[in-house]
Protein backbone atom coordinates (compact mmCIF):
# COMPACT_ATOMS: atom_id res chain seq x y z
CA UNK A 1 0.00 0.00 0.00
CA UNK A 2 1.24 3.46 -0.74
CA UNK A 3 2.25 6.32 1.43
CA UNK A 4 -0.03 9.30 0.75
CA UNK A 5 2.46 10.74 -1.73
CA UNK A 6 2.37 7.51 -3.74
CA UNK A 7 -1.38 7.41 -4.14
CA UNK A 8 -2.57 6.37 -7.55
CA UNK A 9 -5.69 7.82 -9.11
CA UNK A 10 -8.60 5.60 -8.16
CA UNK A 11 -9.43 4.96 -11.80
CA UNK A 12 -5.95 3.48 -12.27
CA UNK A 13 -6.56 1.20 -9.29
CA UNK A 14 -9.68 -0.08 -11.02
CA UNK A 15 -7.77 -0.55 -14.25
CA UNK A 16 -5.16 -2.62 -12.41
CA UNK A 17 -7.87 -4.65 -10.69
CA UNK A 18 -9.74 -5.43 -13.90
CA UNK A 19 -6.49 -6.28 -15.59
CA UNK A 20 -5.57 -8.73 -12.85
CA UNK A 21 -9.08 -10.23 -12.94
CA UNK A 22 -8.86 -10.71 -16.72
CA UNK A 23 -5.50 -12.43 -16.52
CA UNK A 24 -6.84 -14.72 -13.79
CA UNK A 25 -9.80 -15.73 -15.92
CA UNK A 26 -9.38 -19.02 -17.78
CA UNK A 27 -11.39 -17.93 -20.78
CA UNK A 28 -9.02 -15.04 -21.29
CA UNK A 29 -5.99 -17.26 -21.37
CA UNK A 30 -7.76 -19.72 -23.66
CA UNK A 31 -8.78 -17.03 -26.16
CA UNK A 32 -5.40 -15.33 -26.01
CA UNK A 33 -3.52 -18.56 -26.61
CA UNK A 34 -5.97 -19.61 -29.35
CA UNK A 35 -5.58 -16.24 -31.02
CA UNK A 36 -1.81 -16.44 -30.75
CA UNK A 37 -1.58 -19.98 -32.10
CA UNK A 38 -4.12 -19.41 -34.88
CA UNK A 39 -2.39 -16.21 -35.88
CA UNK A 40 0.98 -17.92 -36.01
CA UNK A 41 -0.38 -20.81 -38.06
CA UNK A 42 -2.15 -18.53 -40.53
CA UNK A 43 0.87 -16.30 -40.88
CA UNK A 44 3.25 -19.22 -41.31
CA UNK A 45 1.22 -21.36 -43.69
CA UNK A 46 -1.21 -18.92 -45.23
CA UNK A 47 1.12 -17.34 -47.74
CA UNK A 48 0.11 -18.01 -51.30
CA UNK A 49 1.12 -17.03 -54.74
CA UNK A 50 -1.35 -14.22 -55.22
CA UNK A 51 -0.32 -10.75 -56.28
CA UNK A 52 -2.01 -7.59 -55.13
CA UNK A 53 -0.66 -4.25 -56.22
CA UNK A 54 2.76 -5.63 -56.68
CA UNK A 55 2.94 -7.49 -53.38
CA UNK A 56 3.39 -11.20 -53.84
CA UNK A 57 2.79 -14.13 -51.62
CA UNK A 58 1.01 -12.51 -48.70
CA UNK A 59 -2.66 -12.27 -49.60
CA UNK A 60 -3.80 -15.45 -47.94
CA UNK A 61 -1.71 -14.82 -44.84
CA UNK A 62 -3.15 -11.33 -44.54
CA UNK A 63 -6.70 -12.44 -45.29
CA UNK A 64 -6.31 -15.18 -42.72
CA UNK A 65 -5.31 -12.65 -40.08
CA UNK A 66 -8.24 -10.42 -41.02
CA UNK A 67 -10.73 -13.22 -40.69
CA UNK A 68 -9.12 -14.42 -37.50
CA UNK A 69 -9.52 -10.93 -36.08
CA UNK A 70 -13.14 -10.75 -37.26
CA UNK A 71 -13.92 -13.98 -35.48
CA UNK A 72 -11.85 -13.70 -32.32
CA UNK A 73 -11.53 -10.04 -31.45
CA UNK A 74 -15.23 -9.37 -30.75
CA UNK A 75 -15.39 -12.46 -28.54
CA UNK A 76 -12.17 -11.59 -26.73
CA UNK A 77 -13.60 -8.18 -25.93
CA UNK A 78 -17.20 -9.16 -25.25
CA UNK A 79 -16.57 -11.87 -22.67
CA UNK A 80 -14.67 -9.81 -20.10
CA UNK A 81 -16.69 -6.67 -20.80
CA UNK A 82 -20.10 -8.28 -20.35
CA UNK A 83 -18.92 -9.84 -17.08
CA UNK A 84 -17.22 -6.73 -15.73
CA UNK A 85 -20.27 -5.16 -14.10
CA UNK A 86 -23.00 -7.81 -14.19
CA UNK A 87 -20.92 -10.39 -12.36
CA UNK A 88 -20.06 -8.01 -9.54
CA UNK A 89 -23.61 -6.76 -9.33
CA UNK A 90 -24.78 -10.34 -9.02
CA UNK A 91 -22.29 -11.18 -6.26
CA UNK A 92 -22.89 -7.97 -4.31
CA UNK A 93 -19.33 -6.81 -4.89
CA UNK A 94 -20.44 -3.86 -6.99
CA UNK A 95 -22.48 -2.32 -4.20
CA UNK A 96 -19.54 -2.71 -1.85
CA UNK A 97 -17.17 -1.20 -4.40
CA UNK A 98 -19.44 1.77 -4.99
CA UNK A 99 -19.76 2.28 -1.24
CA UNK A 100 -16.07 3.27 -1.27
CA UNK A 101 -14.87 6.83 -1.79
CA UNK A 102 -15.05 6.80 -5.57
CA UNK A 103 -17.48 8.23 -8.10
CA UNK A 104 -19.54 6.00 -10.35
CA UNK A 105 -17.72 7.60 -13.27
CA UNK A 106 -14.31 6.61 -11.91
CA UNK A 107 -15.50 3.05 -11.40
CA UNK A 108 -16.97 2.81 -14.91
CA UNK A 109 -13.99 4.35 -16.64
CA UNK A 110 -11.71 2.13 -14.56
CA UNK A 111 -13.59 -0.96 -15.63
CA UNK A 112 -13.64 0.11 -19.27
CA UNK A 113 -9.93 0.89 -19.09
CA UNK A 114 -9.05 -2.36 -17.32
CA UNK A 115 -10.89 -4.58 -19.78
CA UNK A 116 -9.54 -2.57 -22.71
CA UNK A 117 -5.93 -2.83 -21.54
CA UNK A 118 -6.31 -6.58 -20.93
CA UNK A 119 -7.74 -7.17 -24.40
CA UNK A 120 -5.21 -4.81 -25.94
CA UNK A 121 -2.31 -6.70 -24.35
CA UNK A 122 -3.65 -10.08 -25.43
CA UNK A 123 -4.14 -8.82 -28.98
CA UNK A 124 -0.77 -7.17 -29.06
CA UNK A 125 1.00 -10.35 -27.98
CA UNK A 126 -0.95 -12.51 -30.42
CA UNK A 127 -0.82 -10.04 -33.25
CA UNK A 128 2.79 -9.16 -32.59
CA UNK A 129 3.88 -12.79 -32.86
CA UNK A 130 1.70 -13.55 -35.89
CA UNK A 131 2.66 -10.24 -37.49
CA UNK A 132 6.35 -10.95 -37.11
CA UNK A 133 5.93 -14.28 -38.90
CA UNK A 134 3.70 -12.65 -41.52
CA UNK A 135 6.33 -10.00 -42.23
CA UNK A 136 8.89 -12.74 -42.66
CA UNK A 137 6.53 -14.33 -45.17
CA UNK A 138 6.30 -11.11 -47.15
CA UNK A 139 3.34 -9.19 -45.73
CA UNK A 140 4.21 -5.48 -45.79
CA UNK A 141 4.70 -3.97 -42.32
CA UNK A 142 2.53 -0.96 -43.20
CA UNK A 143 -0.42 -3.21 -43.94
CA UNK A 144 0.00 -5.08 -40.69
CA UNK A 145 0.23 -1.86 -38.70
CA UNK A 146 -2.97 -0.61 -40.33
CA UNK A 147 -4.67 -3.93 -39.69
CA UNK A 148 -3.49 -3.83 -36.07
CA UNK A 149 -4.93 -0.32 -35.71
CA UNK A 150 -8.30 -1.50 -36.97
CA UNK A 151 -8.14 -4.57 -34.78
CA UNK A 152 -7.61 -2.37 -31.71
CA UNK A 153 -10.51 -0.11 -32.72
CA UNK A 154 -12.74 -3.14 -33.25
CA UNK A 155 -11.75 -4.56 -29.86
CA UNK A 156 -12.45 -1.27 -28.07
CA UNK A 157 -15.83 -0.99 -29.83
CA UNK A 158 -16.80 -4.41 -28.51
CA UNK A 159 -15.49 -3.56 -25.04
CA UNK A 160 -17.92 -0.61 -25.03
CA UNK A 161 -20.76 -2.75 -26.36
CA UNK A 162 -19.99 -5.43 -23.78
CA UNK A 163 -19.92 -2.95 -20.91
CA UNK A 164 -23.22 -1.46 -22.08
CA UNK A 165 -24.72 -4.95 -21.99
CA UNK A 166 -23.19 -5.48 -18.56
CA UNK A 167 -24.92 -2.39 -17.18
CA UNK A 168 -28.31 -3.52 -18.48
CA UNK A 169 -28.59 -6.92 -16.80
CA UNK A 170 -28.19 -8.22 -13.27
CA UNK A 171 -26.54 -11.57 -13.81
CA UNK A 172 -23.41 -12.74 -15.53
CA UNK A 173 -25.28 -15.54 -17.30
CA UNK A 174 -27.66 -13.08 -18.95
CA UNK A 175 -24.82 -10.74 -19.82
CA UNK A 176 -22.85 -13.56 -21.42
CA UNK A 177 -25.90 -14.75 -23.33
CA UNK A 178 -26.55 -11.26 -24.64
CA UNK A 179 -22.87 -10.94 -25.52
CA UNK A 180 -22.89 -14.16 -27.53
CA UNK A 181 -26.13 -13.09 -29.21
CA UNK A 182 -24.56 -9.76 -30.10
CA UNK A 183 -21.53 -11.54 -31.51
CA UNK A 184 -23.77 -13.86 -33.49
CA UNK A 185 -25.81 -11.02 -34.94
CA UNK A 186 -22.94 -8.68 -35.74
CA UNK A 187 -20.26 -11.16 -36.72
CA UNK A 188 -21.89 -14.31 -37.96
CA UNK A 189 -25.15 -13.00 -39.33
CA UNK A 190 -24.03 -9.50 -40.33
CA UNK A 191 -22.69 -10.35 -43.77
CA UNK A 192 -25.39 -12.92 -44.34
CA UNK A 193 -28.07 -10.37 -43.50
CA UNK A 194 -26.64 -7.90 -45.94
CA UNK A 195 -26.46 -10.54 -48.62
CA UNK A 196 -30.03 -11.70 -48.03
CA UNK A 197 -31.34 -8.14 -47.94
CA UNK A 198 -29.59 -7.31 -51.17
CA UNK A 199 -30.48 -10.44 -53.12
CA UNK A 200 -33.95 -11.16 -51.81
CA UNK A 201 -35.39 -7.73 -51.14
CA UNK A 202 -33.21 -5.67 -53.41
CA UNK A 203 -32.65 -2.89 -50.91
CA UNK A 204 -31.17 0.32 -52.23
CA UNK A 205 -27.45 0.76 -52.49
CA UNK A 206 -27.53 3.70 -50.07
CA UNK A 207 -29.25 1.57 -47.46
CA UNK A 208 -26.82 -1.22 -48.12
CA UNK A 209 -23.84 1.02 -47.46
CA UNK A 210 -25.47 2.52 -44.38
CA UNK A 211 -26.30 -0.95 -43.08
CA UNK A 212 -22.70 -2.03 -43.59
CA UNK A 213 -21.23 0.89 -41.72
CA UNK A 214 -23.78 0.52 -38.95
CA UNK A 215 -22.21 -2.81 -38.08
CA UNK A 216 -18.75 -2.41 -36.49
CA UNK A 217 -17.62 -5.75 -37.88
CA UNK A 218 -18.55 -4.71 -41.42
CA UNK A 219 -16.95 -1.32 -40.84
CA UNK A 220 -13.77 -3.12 -39.84
CA UNK A 221 -13.92 -5.31 -42.93
CA UNK A 222 -14.51 -2.32 -45.19
CA UNK A 223 -11.66 -0.43 -43.55
CA UNK A 224 -9.32 -3.31 -44.33
CA UNK A 225 -10.64 -3.50 -47.89
CA UNK A 226 -9.85 0.16 -48.26
CA UNK A 227 -6.31 -0.40 -47.07
CA UNK A 228 -5.81 -3.31 -49.43
CA UNK A 229 -7.27 -1.29 -52.30
CA UNK A 230 -9.59 -3.87 -53.79
CA UNK A 231 -8.60 -7.37 -52.89
CA UNK A 232 -11.60 -9.12 -54.34
CA UNK A 233 -11.29 -11.99 -51.93
CA UNK A 234 -12.08 -9.59 -49.12
CA UNK A 235 -14.47 -7.17 -50.74
CA UNK A 236 -17.66 -9.02 -50.05
CA UNK A 237 -21.01 -7.89 -51.45
CA UNK A 238 -20.72 -4.27 -50.39
CA UNK A 239 -17.04 -3.64 -50.74
CA UNK A 240 -17.10 -2.62 -54.37
CA UNK A 241 -19.97 -0.21 -53.77
CA UNK A 242 -18.18 1.41 -50.86
CA UNK A 243 -14.89 1.67 -52.69
CA UNK A 244 -16.60 3.27 -55.63
CA UNK A 245 -18.17 5.89 -53.41
CA UNK A 246 -15.47 6.71 -50.90
CA UNK A 247 -12.26 5.60 -52.58
CA UNK A 248 -9.17 3.99 -51.03
CA UNK A 249 -8.63 6.80 -48.54
CA UNK A 250 -12.20 7.67 -47.67
CA UNK A 251 -13.25 4.08 -47.04
CA UNK A 252 -10.76 3.27 -44.27
CA UNK A 253 -11.21 6.75 -42.82
CA UNK A 254 -14.97 6.34 -42.67
CA UNK A 255 -14.55 2.87 -41.26
CA UNK A 256 -12.24 4.19 -38.54
CA UNK A 257 -14.70 6.96 -37.66
CA UNK A 258 -17.50 4.41 -37.52
CA UNK A 259 -15.52 2.27 -35.12
CA UNK A 260 -14.71 5.29 -32.97
CA UNK A 261 -18.44 6.07 -32.85
CA UNK A 262 -19.00 2.46 -31.81
CA UNK A 263 -16.49 2.96 -29.02
CA UNK A 264 -17.90 6.26 -27.80
CA UNK A 265 -21.68 5.84 -28.10
CA UNK A 266 -22.13 2.46 -26.36
CA UNK A 267 -19.51 3.57 -23.83
CA UNK A 268 -21.46 6.74 -23.06
CA UNK A 269 -24.76 4.89 -22.92
CA UNK A 270 -23.19 2.36 -20.58
CA UNK A 271 -21.84 5.13 -18.38
CA UNK A 272 -25.22 6.88 -18.30
CA UNK A 273 -26.90 3.63 -17.31
CA UNK A 274 -24.22 2.85 -14.74
CA UNK A 275 -24.21 6.24 -13.06
CA UNK A 276 -27.96 6.21 -12.68
CA UNK A 277 -28.37 4.97 -9.12
CA UNK A 278 -30.62 1.96 -8.79
Amino acid at each position, binding site marked *: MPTPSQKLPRTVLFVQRELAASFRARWFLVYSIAFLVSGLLLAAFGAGDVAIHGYRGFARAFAGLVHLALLFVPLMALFPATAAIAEERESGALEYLLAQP*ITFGEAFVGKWGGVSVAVFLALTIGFGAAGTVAVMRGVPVALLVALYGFVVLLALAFVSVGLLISTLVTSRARATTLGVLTWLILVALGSLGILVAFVRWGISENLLVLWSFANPVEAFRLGIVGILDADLSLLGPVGAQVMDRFGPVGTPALAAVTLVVWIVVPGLLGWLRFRRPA
Partner: protein
Amino acid sequence: MIEARGVTKRFGSHAVLDGIDLQVKAGERVALLGLNGAGKTTLMRCLLGLIRYDGDLRIGERDVRAEPREARALLGYVPQRAPHFDGTLAEVVEFFGRLRGIERHVVLERLDSLGLSIAEHGSKTVATLSGGMLQKLLLALALGDDTPLLLLDEPTANLDPRARHEFLRALRRVDRRTTVLLASHRLADVQAVAERMLVLHHGGLVFDGTMHELWERVGATVTLWLRVPPNVRDEARDRLRTRYQLPSTAANGAAFGVCVVRGGGADVLVDLRKAGIPVEEFWTESPSLQDLLEGVLSPHGGVDAHS
Protein backbone atom coordinates in the same frame (compact mmCIF):
# COMPACT_ATOMS: atom_id res chain seq x y z
CA MET B 1 -22.43 13.19 11.99
CA ILE B 2 -25.62 12.27 10.14
CA GLU B 3 -28.35 14.74 9.35
CA ALA B 4 -31.44 13.80 7.39
CA ARG B 5 -34.19 16.22 6.51
CA GLY B 6 -37.30 15.06 4.78
CA VAL B 7 -35.53 12.08 3.21
CA THR B 8 -38.00 10.33 0.96
CA LYS B 9 -37.48 7.39 -1.31
CA ARG B 10 -40.24 6.07 -3.50
CA PHE B 11 -40.34 2.97 -5.63
CA GLY B 12 -43.21 3.78 -7.94
CA SER B 13 -46.05 5.00 -5.76
CA HIS B 14 -44.74 3.20 -2.67
CA ALA B 15 -42.76 5.38 -0.27
CA VAL B 16 -40.12 3.21 1.40
CA LEU B 17 -38.82 6.28 3.22
CA ASP B 18 -41.36 9.00 3.81
CA GLY B 19 -39.87 12.29 4.97
CA ILE B 20 -37.34 10.98 7.48
CA ASP B 21 -35.89 13.64 9.79
CA LEU B 22 -32.95 12.46 11.81
CA GLN B 23 -29.81 13.62 13.58
CA VAL B 24 -27.02 11.40 14.80
CA LYS B 25 -24.25 13.07 16.75
CA ALA B 26 -20.59 12.15 16.46
CA GLY B 27 -19.72 9.18 18.66
CA GLU B 28 -23.29 7.94 19.04
CA ARG B 29 -24.03 4.22 18.74
CA VAL B 30 -27.35 3.92 17.04
CA ALA B 31 -29.40 0.87 16.07
CA LEU B 32 -31.69 1.09 13.10
CA LEU B 33 -34.59 -1.25 13.68
CA GLY B 34 -37.70 -2.22 11.87
CA LEU B 35 -39.60 -5.13 10.44
CA ASN B 36 -38.63 -6.47 7.03
CA GLY B 37 -39.28 -3.81 4.42
CA ALA B 38 -39.32 -0.98 6.96
CA GLY B 39 -36.67 0.94 5.01
CA LYS B 40 -33.49 0.23 6.99
CA THR B 41 -31.40 -0.92 4.06
CA THR B 42 -32.90 1.77 1.85
CA LEU B 43 -31.81 4.43 4.33
CA MET B 44 -28.34 2.86 4.39
CA ARG B 45 -28.20 2.96 0.60
CA CYS B 46 -29.25 6.60 0.63
CA LEU B 47 -26.43 7.33 3.09
CA LEU B 48 -24.01 5.49 0.80
CA GLY B 49 -25.22 7.53 -2.16
CA LEU B 50 -26.16 4.38 -4.02
CA ILE B 51 -29.75 5.37 -4.74
CA ARG B 52 -31.55 8.58 -5.53
CA TYR B 53 -33.74 10.16 -2.89
CA ASP B 54 -35.62 13.37 -2.18
CA GLY B 55 -34.74 15.59 0.76
CA ASP B 56 -31.38 16.46 2.27
CA LEU B 57 -28.84 14.05 3.65
CA ARG B 58 -25.50 15.05 5.10
CA ILE B 59 -22.61 13.06 6.52
CA GLY B 60 -20.36 15.34 8.52
CA GLU B 61 -20.29 18.50 6.47
CA ARG B 62 -20.78 16.67 3.19
CA ASP B 63 -23.97 16.60 1.18
CA VAL B 64 -24.38 12.98 0.08
CA ARG B 65 -26.03 13.91 -3.22
CA ALA B 66 -23.67 16.73 -4.20
CA GLU B 67 -20.44 15.24 -2.86
CA PRO B 68 -20.94 11.49 -2.79
CA ARG B 69 -17.27 10.59 -2.92
CA GLU B 70 -16.34 12.97 -0.12
CA ALA B 71 -19.28 11.76 1.96
CA ARG B 72 -18.30 8.13 1.41
CA ALA B 73 -14.74 8.96 2.46
CA LEU B 74 -16.15 9.66 5.93
CA LEU B 75 -17.72 6.26 6.34
CA GLY B 76 -16.93 2.58 6.38
CA TYR B 77 -19.51 0.04 5.34
CA VAL B 78 -20.03 -3.58 6.33
CA PRO B 79 -22.82 -5.30 4.39
CA GLN B 80 -24.90 -8.24 5.51
CA ARG B 81 -23.05 -10.69 3.33
CA ALA B 82 -19.41 -10.31 2.37
CA PRO B 83 -19.31 -10.01 -1.41
CA HIS B 84 -17.29 -12.39 -3.53
CA PHE B 85 -13.89 -10.99 -4.43
CA ASP B 86 -11.33 -12.45 -6.76
CA GLY B 87 -7.78 -12.81 -5.56
CA THR B 88 -6.02 -13.44 -2.30
CA LEU B 89 -6.70 -11.76 1.01
CA ALA B 90 -3.49 -9.75 0.63
CA GLU B 91 -4.55 -8.51 -2.82
CA VAL B 92 -8.01 -7.51 -1.61
CA VAL B 93 -6.52 -5.70 1.37
CA GLU B 94 -4.08 -3.96 -0.96
CA PHE B 95 -6.79 -2.82 -3.39
CA PHE B 96 -9.32 -1.57 -0.86
CA GLY B 97 -6.60 -0.07 1.31
CA ARG B 98 -5.41 1.98 -1.65
CA LEU B 99 -8.96 2.82 -2.70
CA ARG B 100 -9.75 4.11 0.76
CA GLY B 101 -6.37 5.81 1.12
CA ILE B 102 -5.40 3.82 4.19
CA GLU B 103 -1.77 3.16 5.02
CA ARG B 104 -0.80 -0.49 4.73
CA HIS B 105 0.37 -0.83 8.33
CA VAL B 106 -2.93 0.59 9.58
CA VAL B 107 -4.96 -2.09 7.82
CA LEU B 108 -2.59 -4.81 8.95
CA GLU B 109 -2.82 -3.61 12.56
CA ARG B 110 -6.60 -3.57 12.31
CA LEU B 111 -6.63 -7.08 10.91
CA ASP B 112 -4.25 -8.30 13.61
CA SER B 113 -6.38 -6.74 16.32
CA LEU B 114 -9.36 -8.62 14.88
CA GLY B 115 -7.44 -11.88 14.89
CA LEU B 116 -6.96 -12.04 11.16
CA SER B 117 -3.26 -12.16 10.43
CA ILE B 118 -2.06 -11.38 6.94
CA ALA B 119 1.07 -13.42 7.61
CA GLU B 120 -1.11 -16.45 8.22
CA HIS B 121 -3.97 -15.91 5.78
CA GLY B 122 -2.63 -13.39 3.26
CA SER B 123 -1.95 -15.91 0.51
CA LYS B 124 -5.35 -17.60 0.81
CA THR B 125 -7.90 -16.77 -1.83
CA VAL B 126 -10.78 -14.79 -0.41
CA ALA B 127 -13.25 -17.43 -1.58
CA THR B 128 -11.73 -19.93 0.87
CA LEU B 129 -12.13 -17.69 3.93
CA SER B 130 -14.96 -18.26 6.38
CA GLY B 131 -17.86 -15.84 6.67
CA GLY B 132 -16.54 -14.64 10.02
CA MET B 133 -13.10 -13.91 8.61
CA LEU B 134 -14.61 -12.02 5.70
CA GLN B 135 -16.74 -9.88 7.98
CA LYS B 136 -13.65 -9.12 10.05
CA LEU B 137 -11.85 -8.13 6.88
CA LEU B 138 -14.68 -5.78 5.93
CA LEU B 139 -14.75 -4.37 9.45
CA ALA B 140 -11.00 -3.74 9.36
CA LEU B 141 -11.33 -1.96 6.02
CA ALA B 142 -14.37 -0.04 7.22
CA LEU B 143 -12.58 1.12 10.36
CA GLY B 144 -9.62 2.17 8.24
CA ASP B 145 -7.70 5.07 9.64
CA ASP B 146 -10.24 6.01 12.33
CA THR B 147 -13.18 6.33 9.96
CA PRO B 148 -15.68 8.70 11.61
CA LEU B 149 -18.81 6.70 10.72
CA LEU B 150 -19.50 2.97 10.53
CA LEU B 151 -22.55 1.77 8.63
CA LEU B 152 -23.31 -1.84 9.50
CA ASP B 153 -26.14 -3.49 7.63
CA GLU B 154 -26.99 -6.65 9.57
CA PRO B 155 -23.31 -7.59 9.66
CA THR B 156 -23.78 -10.74 11.75
CA ALA B 157 -26.82 -12.11 9.94
CA ASN B 158 -24.86 -14.87 8.23
CA LEU B 159 -22.37 -15.69 10.96
CA ASP B 160 -22.35 -18.69 13.25
CA PRO B 161 -22.63 -17.96 17.00
CA ARG B 162 -18.89 -18.04 17.59
CA ALA B 163 -18.07 -15.76 14.68
CA ARG B 164 -20.91 -13.45 15.72
CA HIS B 165 -19.55 -13.28 19.25
CA GLU B 166 -16.07 -12.42 17.98
CA PHE B 167 -17.42 -9.82 15.58
CA LEU B 168 -19.45 -8.12 18.30
CA ARG B 169 -16.49 -8.19 20.65
CA ALA B 170 -14.41 -6.46 17.99
CA LEU B 171 -17.17 -3.96 17.43
CA ARG B 172 -17.37 -3.12 21.12
CA ARG B 173 -13.66 -2.26 21.03
CA VAL B 174 -14.12 0.34 18.32
CA ASP B 175 -12.95 3.82 19.30
CA ARG B 176 -15.65 5.69 21.21
CA ARG B 177 -15.32 8.65 18.84
CA THR B 178 -16.55 6.50 15.97
CA THR B 179 -20.22 6.90 15.19
CA VAL B 180 -21.97 3.59 14.56
CA LEU B 181 -25.24 3.03 12.74
CA LEU B 182 -26.22 -0.62 12.98
CA ALA B 183 -29.18 -2.19 11.21
CA SER B 184 -30.00 -5.50 12.84
CA HIS B 185 -32.68 -8.04 13.60
CA ARG B 186 -30.85 -9.45 16.60
CA LEU B 187 -31.54 -8.13 20.08
CA ALA B 188 -28.16 -9.35 21.33
CA ASP B 189 -26.32 -7.39 18.63
CA VAL B 190 -28.29 -4.26 19.32
CA GLN B 191 -27.80 -4.50 23.07
CA ALA B 192 -24.09 -5.15 22.62
CA VAL B 193 -23.48 -2.16 20.41
CA ALA B 194 -26.15 0.52 20.50
CA GLU B 195 -27.36 3.01 23.03
CA ARG B 196 -29.98 4.66 20.90
CA MET B 197 -32.73 2.88 19.01
CA LEU B 198 -34.44 4.18 15.91
CA VAL B 199 -37.47 2.26 14.75
CA LEU B 200 -38.62 2.64 11.18
CA HIS B 201 -42.07 1.62 10.06
CA HIS B 202 -43.88 2.27 6.81
CA GLY B 203 -41.16 4.72 5.82
CA GLY B 204 -41.45 6.81 8.98
CA LEU B 205 -39.48 7.06 12.21
CA VAL B 206 -41.85 5.77 14.91
CA PHE B 207 -39.48 5.49 17.86
CA ASP B 208 -36.29 7.24 18.91
CA GLY B 209 -34.91 6.44 22.35
CA THR B 210 -32.85 4.10 24.49
CA MET B 211 -33.39 0.37 24.80
CA HIS B 212 -34.78 0.95 28.29
CA GLU B 213 -37.29 3.42 26.87
CA LEU B 214 -38.17 0.93 24.18
CA TRP B 215 -38.95 -1.74 26.79
CA GLU B 216 -40.96 0.76 28.81
CA ARG B 217 -42.83 1.96 25.76
CA VAL B 218 -44.03 -1.51 24.92
CA GLY B 219 -44.33 -2.66 28.54
CA ALA B 220 -42.22 -5.66 27.69
CA THR B 221 -41.68 -8.34 30.29
CA VAL B 222 -39.15 -11.09 30.75
CA THR B 223 -40.33 -14.60 31.44
CA LEU B 224 -38.65 -16.14 34.48
CA TRP B 225 -38.78 -19.92 34.21
CA LEU B 226 -38.80 -21.79 37.52
CA ARG B 227 -38.45 -25.43 38.38
CA VAL B 228 -39.49 -26.39 41.88
CA PRO B 229 -40.06 -29.82 43.47
CA PRO B 230 -43.36 -31.36 42.24
CA ASN B 231 -44.84 -31.48 45.75
CA VAL B 232 -44.68 -27.66 46.15
CA ARG B 233 -45.34 -26.69 42.53
CA ASP B 234 -49.01 -25.85 43.04
CA GLU B 235 -48.24 -23.92 46.18
CA ALA B 236 -45.57 -21.90 44.36
CA ARG B 237 -47.86 -21.16 41.45
CA ASP B 238 -50.73 -20.10 43.72
CA ARG B 239 -48.47 -17.85 45.70
CA LEU B 240 -47.02 -16.12 42.65
CA ARG B 241 -50.31 -15.87 40.79
CA THR B 242 -51.49 -13.18 43.19
CA ARG B 243 -48.73 -10.82 42.06
CA TYR B 244 -47.61 -11.97 38.64
CA GLN B 245 -48.90 -13.30 35.39
CA LEU B 246 -48.16 -17.00 34.95
CA PRO B 247 -48.86 -17.50 31.31
CA SER B 248 -46.91 -20.64 30.54
CA THR B 249 -46.00 -24.06 31.62
CA ALA B 250 -43.17 -25.94 29.98
CA ALA B 251 -44.17 -28.75 27.68
CA ASN B 252 -43.24 -31.45 30.20
CA GLY B 253 -44.89 -29.59 33.05
CA ALA B 254 -41.72 -29.53 35.12
CA ALA B 255 -41.25 -25.77 34.91
CA PHE B 256 -43.56 -22.78 34.76
CA GLY B 257 -43.06 -19.23 33.61
CA VAL B 258 -43.62 -15.99 35.50
CA CYS B 259 -43.85 -12.65 33.72
CA VAL B 260 -41.66 -10.07 35.41
CA VAL B 261 -40.47 -6.64 34.47
CA ARG B 262 -36.92 -6.39 33.21
CA GLY B 263 -34.59 -6.95 36.20
CA GLY B 264 -37.48 -8.03 38.43
CA GLY B 265 -36.69 -11.73 38.59
CA ALA B 266 -34.80 -11.47 41.86
CA ASP B 267 -38.00 -10.40 43.70
CA VAL B 268 -39.69 -13.64 42.67
CA LEU B 269 -36.81 -15.75 43.90
CA VAL B 270 -36.72 -13.87 47.23
CA ASP B 271 -40.46 -14.29 47.60
CA LEU B 272 -40.26 -18.06 47.11
CA ARG B 273 -37.32 -18.33 49.45
CA LYS B 274 -39.25 -16.49 52.16
CA ALA B 275 -42.11 -18.97 51.69
CA GLY B 276 -39.70 -21.86 52.10
CA ILE B 277 -40.19 -23.07 48.56
CA PRO B 278 -36.92 -24.35 47.12
CA VAL B 279 -36.06 -23.44 43.54
CA GLU B 280 -34.19 -26.20 41.77
CA GLU B 281 -33.47 -24.30 38.61
CA PHE B 282 -34.37 -20.99 36.97
CA TRP B 283 -33.64 -19.16 33.73
CA THR B 284 -34.97 -16.14 31.93
CA GLU B 285 -36.31 -15.65 28.45
CA SER B 286 -36.33 -12.19 26.88
CA PRO B 287 -38.67 -11.19 24.13
CA SER B 288 -37.07 -11.10 20.71
CA LEU B 289 -36.36 -7.87 18.94
CA GLN B 290 -39.19 -8.78 16.63
CA ASP B 291 -41.52 -8.97 19.65
CA LEU B 292 -40.37 -5.56 20.87
CA LEU B 293 -40.85 -4.04 17.45
CA GLU B 294 -44.30 -5.51 17.08
CA GLY B 295 -45.06 -4.09 20.52
CA VAL B 296 -43.96 -0.62 19.43
CA LEU B 297 -45.93 -0.89 16.24
CA SER B 298 -49.15 -2.34 17.64
CA PRO B 299 -51.85 0.27 18.32
CA HIS B 300 -52.19 -0.70 21.99
CA GLY B 301 -48.54 -1.62 22.60
CA GLY B 302 -47.52 -4.31 25.04
CA VAL B 303 -45.43 -7.37 24.55
CA ASP B 304 -43.92 -10.13 26.57
CA ALA B 305 -41.63 -13.02 25.91
CA HIS B 306 -44.54 -15.14 24.73
CA SER B 307 -45.94 -12.83 22.14
